[in-house]
């Protein structure tokens, strides 16, 4: 358990946002935390479509049940979030 900041680049948003999460969070939980600061704030909701996460520039999404600590991401690394 450790607080871990990431930089969220949410599809459709105009600004990178600091999102505090936890190393024990799954990527589904990380995506939900990022969504809280973008969806319905600066990005329209797309109900029913899951939000996925991938390393910036990657085409491969992280598995939803992967833990943040297993991704190899460092503090404040930028993660891309998008509606599947």
């Amino acid at each position, binding site marked *: 358990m450790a607080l871990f900041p990431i*930089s969220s680049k949410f*599809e459709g948003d105009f*600004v*990178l*946002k600091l999102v505090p999460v936890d190393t024990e969070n799954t990527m589904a939980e990380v995506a939900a935390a990022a969504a809280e600061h973008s969806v319905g704030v*600066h990005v*329209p909701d797309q109900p029913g479509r899951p939000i996925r996460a991938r390393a*910036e520039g990657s085409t491969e999404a992280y598995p939803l049940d992967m833990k943040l600590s297993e991704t190899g991401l460092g503090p404040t*690394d930028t993660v891309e979030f998008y509606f599947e």
Partner: protein
Amino acid sequence: MALLERSAWYDLARSTEWTPSYISQDELFPPEMSGGEGIPAEVWSTYDEPYKVTYREYVDVQRQKDEGAYSVKAALERADLYNKADPGWISILKEHYAAVALVEYGASFQEARYVRWSKAPGMRNMATFGMLDEMRHGQIQLYFPHEYIGKDRQFDWSHQMMWSNNWVALGARHFFDDMLMTRGAAETSISANFAFETGFTNLQFIGLSGDAANAGDFTFSKLIQSIQSDEARHAQLGTPLLQMMIENGQKAKAQNLIDIAFWRSYRLFTILSGIPMDYYVPLEVRESSFKEFMEEWIVTQFMKSIEDLGLSKPWYWDIFLRDLDEHHHGQHLGTYSWRPTLWWNPAAGVSPEERDWLEEKYPGWNDTFGKVWDVMIDNFVSGRPEKTVPGTLPMICNVSQLPIVGTPGVSLKDTSIVFEGRKYHFASEVDKWIFEQDPERYKHHKNLIDRFLGGEIQPANLDGVLEYMGLGVISPGGDDAHGYAWLEAYKTALAPAG
């Protein structure tokens, strides 16, 4: 009384120069203070300032300038601009005075350093006038907003801003420390006088003066043109230095200094000029868009000055031209969203008519930045104002100190490096390039996010951040300039049928 022509005695009178015998040249002009290393000693005395003025002339002309500006102010004081002007215009005044007044006073130290440390006698002489100019700019731009403090506490930032840790202050200090305060006299003159003053200050101090006159604020219009008439003179300090560097085999160094200063100035002016010109100035009085003013003053006029010296456009020219359509729109969305962090009340500037104007000036705006505004407008209209202010902080650039923004779906990206084990984030390739030009210079600075994550800001939440920035301390933070009246058009449009 018949006076000699100035040209008959000027060169002799201003060339106060001697050869030291008790100390070395390097002790008289320490390289770290004087700069211009590698330029032969005998070359310095050939520095020929293009804009010549004597002390007698200076005092006479400056008196006329002050008389003009102060008499317009006095004549219009009873006109009650504060209550009659559009609130968006008042926000421009708050932003301008706070961002500018103390910086100008700081610039008098920059000029004072030339007076002492420049190795060129002509430059020391001209810089004396430049130093007095900048004192005038500091004083007059503290005095003019003073009449508004009794009406609105946010005007107190005119004096307080540069001493605060507001995010804009962090950006301004980082910029001005880099450009004005921490390089040798010769290098500073190229960054500050040539790139910043002959280039970018025109944008705010002349471009905005037209909008001011149209908005009925003749006091401000007169004031900023008066200030710029000083700048037009002392900004010329840099040109002969550039010439000397180029002629002595230092063209690459000169180009590098300009490339750094140009981008840094441009990004700063997206906040100072870009946002106000395209969003705060009432639609009916806008003279030109920010991009059009940039094309007039920078792309055309300033670039001609650079090329006239035999230098080139900055290497990132194509990036810059694209950025003119993008960056300040993102910064406006950011400043409006995080409006509690401002000391002014931002105008949204996105009523249906204003959006038409934006779409005309920046084709594609509605499909990109406009989409984000649609979400915010929906929140306002549907009674969810709490969703219109983000619950976290933006990521911030380690050079510009501004939020890392981009065109939604097009150009938002992180640009980062790891240097000596620390991760740095940048708002563009050019900001990263600037860092890499001299990491030792930039590596120690902590941006707002570094401070927040490092535990320097307590409590570590948004309230703690606001207090750290001086909001609720110096004055209340920002809220919509027009009390959200602009939403009425959308309420009608979005009202459920029946």
